[in-house]
Each structure stands twice: as C-alpha cells, then as structure tokens.
C-alpha cells in the first residue's frame, strides 16, 4: 500500500539505524520521549528499539488518552450509564478502564446499556434512531479526536437532536509536556512529537520546547521508518548543536495545522481551569469542557455525577510509567497481578499504553535487573 510499504522496508531501516550510529556520541546516554501512544505501539510492534544503539533510550510519554483518565472520571461515567433510559456510548478501550468499583463493561454486564462506537457520529446516529432514550457519548482523546466530537455536537445542535449529550474528557497535549519538562526527576534529550495531533494543531504549539527548555522536537509518522528517521533527526540536531521543531511527517502534517478544526473546537469547547491526569496529578488548563453555547448538550449538566476524586490503587505505578521515570517491567504488579486481561492500571488497558505494549510484545523480562 502506498505510504505504508515504503515505510516498513527493513533494508532502509538498517540504513537509518547505521546513520543513527553515526551521530551518537560514545559515552553519552540519550533519552528520547515518544509522546504518543501510537508511537509506543509501533516501536514494540516493529522492534524499532532493537535497531538503536544501547546508549539511546526511548521513554514512553503520556500520549494515550485512556491511560491518563483518572478513576473518578470512570466512576462518573458509570453513574451516568446506570441512569434509567440512558444509552452510554464510548470507544472500545474505555470500556475496560477500571473505576473504583469496576469497569463500564462490568456496568454493562449488570444491566446498563453501554455500547461501543467507532466515532461520535455513530453515537449521534443511535440518538436519532432511538429518540425516546438519552444517548450519552463519553468523549476522550487529544486534539486529533476533539474535532470529531466538536463537529458531531455542532451537527446535533443544528439538527435539534435533544436526546444526545456528551461527557467531555478531551485533553490537550501541550500542558502535560510542560509539566513533564518541569519535573525534576526526569531528564530528557528530545521529543518525538505526535503525528496526527499535529495534523490539527500544527507544529507551532511545540515551539516552546526548544525555545524555553532547549530540547529538540521532531513530529513523526507512525511507520517504523518514520520513527527511526525522527530519532535520527533529533540526534543529528543534538550533534550539530541545533535545537528546533522539525517535521518528519510532512506528507501529512501542515506546519499550521487545520484551521477549520481549530475553529470548530474553539466554538464547541472551553478550557477547564484544571483537570486531573492519572499519575501526573492536576494540570491547569489541560482539558476541555463544553462551552456555554453548548451547555444544553453537556452530560455533566444534564445528569448528576458524583465528581469524587479517587486515589489510584497503591500497588499501581502508572504515574511513574507515564512520566517515564520507571519502565513498565519495573512496576511491582506488572505481568503478575496486572495483565491486559485483568488490568489494575490504565497503562495495561489500552494496547497503546506502555505496559500493554511491553506485555504484548514480550518485553516484560528482557531487561529486568534482579536485585
């Protein structure tokens, strides 16, 4: 397939790996964070890390929306799902995220009408097909997904679909990156920037990273050669003493993003003053709620939700994993009490979560140091 096969060519991969070897400084340890869960998944699916020199370490960032949802928000969703007459819709991964008292799948098994959808538009179709029921869409995702929710809400309002509402959990990418850069226990040399988030926001929002923190950013695609190429571009910047935002994914990402998508988001959403991220705590202005103009479609105003903050399970170290402070296999419950089938932490739920990526691709014991 065009734009796919060319970017999975093993021979070219070896060539880029050799170029990477040519720009690393022996004796220096490099830590490069891939921000996006999609990159984490590709790295382990294709064994990208096996092609890297030993002194180039990939650190997995917080770019998996399921992984950063705190338990309290899951509890709020389940409370709405249990309301009489409600059809509760969400993406598949969200169904298995544990709240303090089970998952949405558990709520479904206990009688709640919870349905998996592929898009917000699917949820709106359900609302139009079942006008006597209240249909709620549990919206998650970064700026890639937020325009889809925004356009669906605009359509719902224009078409007067009154039995549709949205519980908004959309998050934004820049505030958690800033929080990570401010974190004293994490030293990073550069970032692989999120590819499809950047189709919406463009490359400009990442300019603060080289300007304020002196770290290079390279926006990358999701095929293995994209990722290897981006790592080479980051290491080349470091070798040449440069520090800037570069766009490896030029076949898809315009530097200024998609202005219509940004305008739709600005109309439908407003920034929350603060939002809790699993493992990272409260980060100011890091998430979206529905704007006042769309308040009538806000599920959190239409239904009563507990809104209680729930602490993460003590055994779970998702927070350290999300910050890249520890590797997934260094967590006490990784692969034993916490597995994809019975996840304790959210990083094990989504295949894009760092823990699930390590577990599914057999990276759970390879580098473990036994004291």
């Amino acid at each position, binding site marked *: *397939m065009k*734009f796919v096969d060319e970017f999975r060519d093993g021979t070219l991969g070896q060539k880029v790996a050799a170029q990477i070897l040519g720009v690393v400084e022996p004796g220096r340890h490099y830590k490069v964070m891939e921000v*996006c*869960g*999609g990159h984490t*998944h590709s790295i382990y699916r294709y064994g990208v890390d096996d092609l890297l020199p030993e002194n180039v370490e990939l650190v997995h960032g917080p*770019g*998996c*929306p*399921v*992984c950063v949802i705190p338990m309290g928000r899951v509890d709020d969703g389940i409370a709405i799902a249990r309301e009489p007459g409600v059809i509760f819709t969400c*993406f*598949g*991964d969200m*169904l*298995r995220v544990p709240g303090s008292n089970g998952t949405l*799948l558990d709520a479904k098994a206990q009688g709640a009408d919870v349905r*998996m*959808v*592929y*898009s*917000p*538009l*699917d949820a709106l179709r359900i609302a139009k097909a079942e006008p006597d029921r209240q249909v709620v869409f549990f919206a*998650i*995702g*970064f700026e*890639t*997904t937020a*325009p*889809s929710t925004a*356009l*669906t809400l605009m*359509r719902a309002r224009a078409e007067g679909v009154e039995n549709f509402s949205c519980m908004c959990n959309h998050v934004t990418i820049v505030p958690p990156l800033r929080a990570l850069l401010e974190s004293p226990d994490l030293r990073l040399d550069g970032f692989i920037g*999120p*590819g*499809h*988030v950047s*189709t*919406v926001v463009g490359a400009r929002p990442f300019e603060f990273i080289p300007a304020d923190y002196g770290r290079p950013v390279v926006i990358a695609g*999701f095929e293995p050669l994209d990722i290897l190429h981006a790592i080479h571009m980051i290491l080349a910047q470091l070798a040449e003493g440069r520090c800037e935002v570069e766009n490896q994914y030029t*076949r*898809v990402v*315009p530097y200024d993003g*998609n202005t*219509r*998508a940004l305008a*739709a988001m600005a109309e439908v959403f407003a920034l929350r003053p603060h939002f809790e991220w699993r493992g990272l705590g409260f980060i100011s202005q890091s998430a979206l709620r529905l704007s006042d103009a769309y308040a009538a479609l806000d599920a959190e105003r239409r239904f009563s939700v507990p809104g209680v903050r729930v602490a993460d399970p003590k055994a779970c170290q998702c927070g350290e994993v999300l910050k890249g402070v520890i590797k997934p296999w260094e967590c006490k419950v990784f692969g034993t009490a916490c597995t994809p089938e019975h996840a304790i932490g959210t990083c094990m739920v*989504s*295949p*894009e*979560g760092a823990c699930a990526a390590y577990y*599914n691709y057999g990276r759970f014991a390879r580098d473990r140091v036994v004291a």
Partner: protein
Amino acid sequence: MSACDPYDAHCITCGDVAVEMRVVEVNESLAVCEAEGEEREVEVALLDDVQAGDRLLVHADVGLVKL
C-alpha cells in the same frame, strides 16, 4: 478497518490512528469513503473541495487531511 473492539489490538483514539480512505461520493459535508472494502460516512467539513476519488486521512469518521 474494524471498529474499536475492547479486545482488539488497536484503539483509534489512544493510538492517534488515522486511516487512509478513498472518497466514493460526496453529499454536502458528509462523504461516503471506502477503505479495505468497508464504507463509512465521513465528515469532510474541515477540508476544501472534496471530490469522489480523493484520498483522505480519516480519524473517528472525520477527514483531517487531503492526501
């Protein structure tokens, strides 16, 4: 392109996944698009002048980029 199955190997949102689709037919801001034999109705309001035969990068039933 399967739906986001809870036990499938990939989630479109968490994976920041976008799929290349071919436009079959345009009806105002919605277009019927096809990939791997499956057709979906896709919002194309974010793109200029979408026509049958165009290739789009689609995420959660929204066309984000014309390729």
